[in-house]
């Protein structure tokens, strides 16, 4: 009450239906020097406002409203019908095989278009190349790391990884040749030759294989090298083979194989 404006209290007084509260409000207003006759005048005026009559609306209100509502309802139904017809048409044709085929073709075309659009984008190609380079470098690093391990299992895994490289790296060739010439395990060395044969087009690989002939003590490795040299048609291998034939302790089978290989190569 304290914070209320005088006008607010007057309105509360005029609209109050509780007699005791109304009396209280009147006293309060008189305390605030609001003129009694003014208050009573407003009270009567406010009361008399109730006597102002309003006629009932005529029948045209109902008639006009319900006509307008009918128009709105029929418009909405038409809109609904149009939508439902469209859905119905789709539902009929949806089950036909040719429509399913058409959907499939549209999807394929969309997929192709998106793929084409992406692959023809220069920035996309650049990104793809950079990503491929990064992956290749990671693979090379992993292969070299495995080839440097002392465990035959890990070395074999490294050799296998080297064989999976699409583009041979010089560092990997050198590491494989190092393995071929120095690894004590004949199995590891045989596996190394198999992978090196895959990259036989590379001059460094061919030179390395030729040099390895004289360094191998294992009969199996010697036989395998003879086969590889024949397959690669590496004529530079003839000289190292002849030197090998001079060894007194050379296995007879190896000797025989090498002699035949020399004949093929020359």
């Amino acid at each position, binding site marked *: 009450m304290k914070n*209320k*404006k005088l*006008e*607010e209290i*007057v*309105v*509360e007084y*005029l*609209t109050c239906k509780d007699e005791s509260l109304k009396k209280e409000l009147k006293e309060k207003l008189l305390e605030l020097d609001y003129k009694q006759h003014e208050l009573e*005048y*407003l009270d009567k*005026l*406010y009361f*008399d*406002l*109730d*006597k*102002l*009559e*309003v*006629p*009932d*609306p*005529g029948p*045209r*209100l*109902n008639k*006009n*409203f*319900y006509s*307008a*509502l009918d128009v*709105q*309802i029929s418009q*909405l139904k038409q809109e*609904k019908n149009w939508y439902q017809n469209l859905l119905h048409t789709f539902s009929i044709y949806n089950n036909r095989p040719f429509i399913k085929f058409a959907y499939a073709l549209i999807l394929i075309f969309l997929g192709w278009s998106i793929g084409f659009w992406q692959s023809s984008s220069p920035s996309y190609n650049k990104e793809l190349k950079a990503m491929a380079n990064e992956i290749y470098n990671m693979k090379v690093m992993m292969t070299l790391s495995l080839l440097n391990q002392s465990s035959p299992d890990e070395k074999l895994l490294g050799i296998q990884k080297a064989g999976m490289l699409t583009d041979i790296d010089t560092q990997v060739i050198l590491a494989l040749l190092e393995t071929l010439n120095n690894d004590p395990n004949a199995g590891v060395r045989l596996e190394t030759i198999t992978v090196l044969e895959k990259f036989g087009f590379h001059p460094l690989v061919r030179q390395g294989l030729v040099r390895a002939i004289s360094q191998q003590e294992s009969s199996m490795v010697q036989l395998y090298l003879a086969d590889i040299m024949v397959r690669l048609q590496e004529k530079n291998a003839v000289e190292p083979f002849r030197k090998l034939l001079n060894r007194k302790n050379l296995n007879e089978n190896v000797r025989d194989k090498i002699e035949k290989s020399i004949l093929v190569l020359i």
Partner: protein
Amino acid sequence: MGSSSDIEIMLRVKAGDIEKLGLLFERYKQALFAYFYRNTNRKHTSEDLVQNVFLRILKYRQRFQGYGKFTTWMYQIARNVYLDHCKKDNPHSSKKDSLNDNISDESTAETHYLQDESIELLGCALNRINDADREVLILSKYQNLAYKEIGEIFGCSEGTVKVRVYRALIALKKKYKALEAP
């Protein structure tokens, strides 16, 4: 029927069941008609304005959120309809000049009431106060709306509504006294 039912009906109208608007029309046509009639003193105009309110409710049904009372939203629309009508027609400009304004050009025998002279003068005085004063007075006196609701309709506080009602009453008293004077 309470306001929650109004809201339920209006939400059904919003969802596309627009036939249900008839229920709200039946419920509020009389009150809205009285609101417009007291503001315009014209029967046919008031009937048209009531219809416009319900057509606008239909048009803007998607904007109805279902918060608060339905009547607050309805009277906001009614008020806009009335303000648009005032802008278009300015119906009071000629009416205020004559003492016989309360018997409008559209009035027929059914709108002639057996009111005593003082009440007739009060009706004239109400027509002569400005639109804003009359509107707030009508909403508070006749439309059974709380001051808080009127505040929401006008975008002001409850206290401000009371002050505006008071000022409207003072304006009404002045016009009434002026008409009473010989």
